[in-house]
């Protein structure tokens, strides 16, 4: 990079959002900060003066941010704004957020971009409904760093006592949300006191000015230790290469890394990172970079799958719990279907359980009535129509948060609080798009120390049509001709002469007189076409939409093909 830009290139940039109840002075604080630090272009203040003269409205610094005619006419911020600002120390993106309840969705849009937040509180009025609701949203958005501005100190005679009471009240409320207050500043935005320079009126304040407080916030860097998460955004085929593109949301990716793609669990190596210009060619990319990756296997990959390292893969689930906030005009309802978008993945979903409905401004429980209203917060259990790869929000923010689309608009957001991984697929059968999991050829043993049944994990590949399968092992023996009924995937695999014959979905399968074995290697007691239909009817009754479950134990015989070994350790 060019020398001249050296200092610029290494300068840090922090994104800060100003939140709080309507009229507590967020826009004025920002306007004052810009004005007193000389950041405004020439004529900006003159323009506001002119507009207030033309319209007969009083001069307001907030107009620097509230650019819409409607905003100026009503004296409120409707939508969020971002602007750039710099101190001697570093660069900032300052985000102004509306404080009106009606526009919480816009506050969230602004705050979701920020790395740290200021809560602006009117000294005279103290914490109000939206102050608290905003704090709650900051917690849900994962913003750990928050700071307090006690504004309008001129209205309380610059009272130190009022300031301290406000700080304590805010600290208490924030801590109940798990948020820490890193710094607090008393000021008057209107009079420009303690914004960029200390003020005699606030001589009792031995803490920082607003400008100093800004610079005292810490930017949290990306950890190189974080697990790799590269959600596939698209698969390019502009030439004969298949290129996976996406943004590295966490961790790093480098050439020759071994990777796994979830859901599915296919593994491969990173061959190269592609670029247009030779000088952009690189062998490694870090969090935040938009990359184009060529991998060693020509898999059929799709948008929404996540590339990670094998050791720390995301969870693959079709059901999870989350904390959600709702911004939709019509309430969120249990049992209605929504589109869920999580990083680049999408799935239809349904809210199957709704609990802990709370008023997001008081944190008091609300009576749950099967719906979550405008601006409310709830804990929910979500069932997905298809499996997605995801993380707990506490472990990886970018792949642990999602939005819900109602009708055509994003109407809710949420963070994953609980999800249980499905067992990893280690072995199975593939044929084109059809895929079935099985543990048929895994050795089972009885652990004498723990007195439990265990299986020996082996990395058996997928068997394709025509592949031979290992018919006998130390703990099992199968015939040369039989049908494997894989209930989880609703697929039957025919084994003919020790080779994989064909894969067919349950609906297309006809009983041919060969023995039936389930995916674990236990005999299925089906001896005729009639038995098969009976079993299927039973399954239809017990299976719900989300999960395909196996048959009742009465259909199984555990002692035909398997013989459980006794052992002390898995390597026996």
């Amino acid at each position, binding site marked *: *990079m*060019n020398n*001249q*830009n050296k200092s*610029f*290139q*290494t*300068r840090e*940039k922090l994104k800060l959002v100003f939140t709080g109840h309507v009229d507590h002075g967020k826009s004025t604080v920002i306007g004052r900060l810009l004005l007193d630090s000389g950041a*405004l*272009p*020439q*004529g*900006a203040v003159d*323009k506001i003066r*002119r*507009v207030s003269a033309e319209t007969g409205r009083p001069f307001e610094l907030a107009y620097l941010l509230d*650019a*819409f*005619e409607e905003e100026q006419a009503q004296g409120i911020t*409707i*939508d969020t*704004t*971002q*602007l*750039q600002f710099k101190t001697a120390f570093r*660069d900032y993106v300052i985000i102004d957020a509306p404080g009106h309840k009606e526009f919480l*969705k*816009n506050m*969230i*849009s602004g705050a*979701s*971009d920020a790395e740290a937040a200021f809560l602006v509180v009117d000294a005279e009025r103290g914490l109000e409904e939206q102050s608290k609701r905003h704090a709650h949203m900051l917690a849900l*958005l994962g913003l750990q760093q928050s700071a307090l501005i006690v504004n309008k100190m001129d209205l309380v005679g610059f009272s130190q006592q009022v300031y301290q009471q406000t700080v304590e009240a805010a600290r208490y409320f924030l801590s109940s949300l798990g948020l820490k207050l890193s710094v607090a500043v008393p000021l008057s935005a209107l009079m420009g006191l303690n914004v960029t320079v200390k003020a005699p009126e606030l001589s009792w304040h031995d803490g920082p000015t607003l400008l100093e407080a800004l610079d005292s916030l810490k930017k949290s860097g990306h950890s190189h230790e974080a697990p790799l998460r590269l959600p596939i*955004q*698209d698969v390019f085929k*502009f030439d004969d290469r298949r*290129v996976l593109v996406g*943004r590295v949301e966490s961790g790093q990716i480098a050439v020759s890394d071994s990777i796994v793609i979830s859901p599915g669990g296919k593994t491969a190596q990173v061959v190269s990172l592609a*670029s*247009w*210009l030779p000088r*952009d060619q690189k062998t490694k990319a*870090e969090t*935040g*970079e*938009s990359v*184009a990756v060529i991998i060693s296997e020509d898999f059929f990959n799709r*948008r929404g799958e996540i590339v990670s390292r094998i050791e720390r893969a995301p969870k693959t689930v079709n059901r999870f719990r989350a904390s959600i906030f709702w*911004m939709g005009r019509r309430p969120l309802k249990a049992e209605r279907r929504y*589109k869920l*978008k999580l990083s680049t993945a999408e799935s239809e979903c349904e809210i199957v359980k709704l609990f802990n409905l709370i008023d997001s401004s008081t944190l008091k429980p609300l009576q749950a009535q099967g719906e979550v209203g405008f601006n409310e917060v709830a804990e929910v259990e979500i069932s997905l129509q298809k499996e997605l790869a995801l993380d707990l929000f506490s472990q990886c923010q*970018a792949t642990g*948060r999602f*939005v819900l*689309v109602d009708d*055509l*608009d*994003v109407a809710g*957001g949420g963070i994953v609080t609980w999800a249980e991984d499905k067992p990893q697929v280690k072995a199975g059968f593939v044929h084109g798009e059809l895929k079935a999991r099985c543990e048929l050829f895994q050795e089972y043993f009885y652990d004498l120390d723990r007195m439990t049944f265990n299986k020996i994990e082996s990395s058996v590949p997928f068997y394709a049509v025509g592949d031979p399968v290992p018919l006998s092992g130390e703990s099992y023996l199968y015939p040369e001709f039989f049908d494997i009924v894989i209930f989880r995937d609703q697929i039957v695999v025919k084994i003919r002469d020790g080779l994989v014959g064909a894969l067919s979905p349950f609906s297309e399968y006809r009983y041919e007189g060969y023995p039936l074995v389930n995916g674990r290697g236990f005999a299925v007691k089906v001896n005729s076409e009639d038995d098969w239909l009976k079993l299927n009817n039973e399954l239809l009754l017990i299976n719900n939409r989300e999960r395909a479950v196996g048959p009742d134990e009465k259909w199984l015989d555990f002692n035909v093909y398997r013989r459980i070994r006794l052992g002390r350790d898995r390597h026996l």
Partner: protein
Amino acid sequence: MNHLQALEAYSIFILREAYKKLGRLGLLWSIGKDSTVLLWLTKKAFLGHCPFPFVHVDTSYKIPEMIIHRDKVAKEMDLELIVHQNVLALESGMGPDKGRLICCKALKTDALNEVTKKYGFDGLIVGVRRDEEGSRSKERIFSERNQDDEWDYANQPPELWGQFKTEFPRGHHIRVHPLLQWSEIDIWRYVENEGIELIDLYFAKNGQRYRSLGCAPCTGKIESQATSVSQIINELENTSVSERAGRAQDQEDAYAMQKLRRDGYM
């Protein structure tokens, strides 16, 4: 990653998102520095390809060098170029003498809306930035326009966590803004780092240069000695005049841009 690399990475993410999620796409190309950076980012996003057409709304009042430059770059870069004019308005003598905002509306807004309809664009990529002026500072990255190309700015849906507005009724379209979070000086620093070639109207001749390019009758030059990109950066670091001060239509009325943009102006 430094600040410019972060901006580049995010813009590439946005472009790829638009390409994947919106149907028919066009990139609004005005020959200036922002659209040229957009072209560059497009090449980076799509590994040297430009998988959508570039659209130039030609008011016929553009500074003549811009048209020459446009055709030259389109040929060199092998762009699929769509040039569109509001022929009816031009035939009836539309021009800035009819009133600046009326002229902008007819030759830019209406022409843009015509070409959007004509080609059935679901997405239009536009190089506007938040720091240009007030109504743009309030924009979303994916911003919906209705069947009449209007922007319902007072009621924008939430946009968070890189989840953009990609569901919309037929006949509506999305304005995609990959440069929204860039500032004027970011653009110039990027131009410098990447060695991007720009039209020479930006560089001072006889003590004057253009800071923002538009139609000849309504775009003023600024006093400047800057003849290179690094001199321009230096000049911008020390100026307190806003970028669009030389654009007459912005100065017409306090909310001129808001009104133009409500009706579909870029």
